[in-house]
């Protein structure tokens, strides 16, 4: 409990609680401060609006010298989020700075939802639709927004039932790639 990393995480938590950025919350597990659950609301005026996206942050003793691993638990359709929920975000990789804290990480991710970067896609299909077919992109994103409101049991049911796709709403258009993503997450 007394390592520098743990103290720093306690401070991160206090800071996040005392001045939470809008639409963001996060908290370490009661029994393990190295594992944090977080929720980001989809920013307004974007297709992600009203989504309640869940994330998992995993720290180790090298924090804050090295960034944590951040992963979306909710299924995402975003040019810079891989099918398994991992993110392609520079500040979590080569642009990391040890002065960043959990609030800064979550805020950056929230703004990534607002401003995707289709030039270094983690999800090629999302990137392509974002560039070429905004209407379809928005429709697909909205499907994930609605899925984000479901209970995890319902999500499990939806993605587990039938090899077809992760959710009723988007099932008929679901390309094989998406379906794989859903399966991988459920497994």
């Amino acid at each position: 409990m007394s390592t520098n990393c743990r103290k720093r995480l306690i401070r991160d938590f206090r800071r996040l609680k005392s001045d939470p950025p809008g639409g963001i919350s996060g908290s370490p597990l009661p029994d393990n401060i190295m594992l944090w659950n977080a929720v980001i609301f989809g920013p307004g005026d974007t297709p992600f609006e009203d989504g309640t996206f869940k994330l998992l942050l995993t720290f180790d003793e090298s924090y804050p010298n090295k960034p944590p691993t951040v992963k979306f638990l909710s299924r995402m359709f975003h040019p810079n989020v891989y099918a398994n929920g991992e993110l392609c975000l520079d500040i979590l990789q080569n642009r990391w700075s040890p002065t960043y804290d959990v609030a800064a990480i979550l805020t950056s991710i929230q703004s990534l939802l607002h401003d995707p970067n289709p030039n270094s896609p983690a999800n090629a299909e999302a990137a392509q639709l974002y560039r070429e077919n905004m209407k379809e992109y928005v429709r697909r994103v909205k499907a994930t927004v609605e899925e984000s409101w479901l209970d995890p049991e319902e999500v499990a049911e939806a993605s587990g039932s039938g090899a077809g796709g992760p959710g009723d709403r988007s099932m008929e258009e679901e390309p094989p790639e998406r379906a794989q993503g859903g399966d991988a997450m459920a497994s």
Partner: protein
Amino acid sequence: MNYLTADVQDETDFPPRDQAPGLRGLDGSLRCDICGELYDAPVTIACGHCFCSACIRSSLALKQECPSCRASAGEVHIRPNPILEKVISDWNDARPFILRLLKQDDERAAASSSEIADKDKGTSKKRKRTPDSSKSHFFDSNIAGPSRNPLSPNGKSIRPSSPPSRPKKLKPKSDEVIDMTIPSSDIEEDEMPAARSGNLVPKADDLVSCPICQKTVRYSKLNGHIDKGCKDPPPAKTAASAASTWSKIMGGSARNGHQKGKHKKKGNGVHDDDSDEDYPLPIATYTTLKDRQLKEMLLDQDLPLTGDRSNWEQRHQRWVMLYNANLDRSNRKTKAELRRDLKKWEEDTAKKKKIVIHDVIGYQIEHKSEFTKLIDAARQSSKAKAPAASGSADAAIVPPAGPASSSPPSPPKSSSSLAEFKPTGLLPGDNIVVDSEGEQ
């Protein structure tokens, strides 16, 4: 939630600005942006940013840039900042004291609000504090460290002569000193220590003691006396203490530091040599070293040879860092203490394994109630920020950890303001850029 009660101090130990102006900000500014502790052996690098010596050294070992502004930086730029170190050591003394005063203040306010009608003296003033005390419950729940310590006896804290007013918090001195703030004409009526009612204001011929030098002076002459710097006939005691203070400032700490460093002769340091003590160890390039050379270097420093080659490299690298950071301290640790630090660090990093969650859905089901709470919290925070374009006092108080603290507080991140949205903690000029897949 045991980690909440852990003895970790931070700036949220202090109430927000509207209750105790400046304290939270002050405590925050004296903390390293990397570790969040009050600076330990503070050093400055070329761009002017300040960090704990050990923190910036470990950061520079990974990346040669300032963690705050990304200006290029290297170990050679590191300069100790003894003034800041002195400030920190004084603040370390003052901190628990101020927190105790704040707590007493709070308790007094709470006590007076519960027994409002009971006391006639100073009741009206005390009642004024009541709204404040409800606000500071938030602060109470965040208290850690010394503020949790038992307080001084109640009888003392309720004495009517120490008013629960702001000036008192900022002047943690004896009661007599506070008494004397009354005559000063430029203090606003409402800022005066509260419970002092009119009949306590001295008349021109009354003898009062000077708030600065404690000497007894006629009230009518007090202002002139202070203007002259309390010099009329200089009170011997003050002069002496001033002299000692100055000698401390002028060289005490610097010289002491050197001497302490030199006099600490280590028992187990066979290779120790007085002349080496003040020189930093060179940073090694491990790839060019043969095992034998590396072994010799470890033995030179009396470090163990357990583990494999990568353990040796890490051990030696960390040792050099700890050793050099220790030179930036004026109260240096002994080598034995440094070795203990090194050992602890090795133990800590040994348990560094990230947990990997494979069953994402199962995990969400398991932690469903926590996520429900988090969603509520996020909803509240977005509501709180949305209409708070001007009113969010809290946001203005706690500057983000990063260098962005020099810029104005980030705009409320309501849904409508996302167009010009910039994340709080990010470095200047940092756009949210997504890097190519090959990076990691």
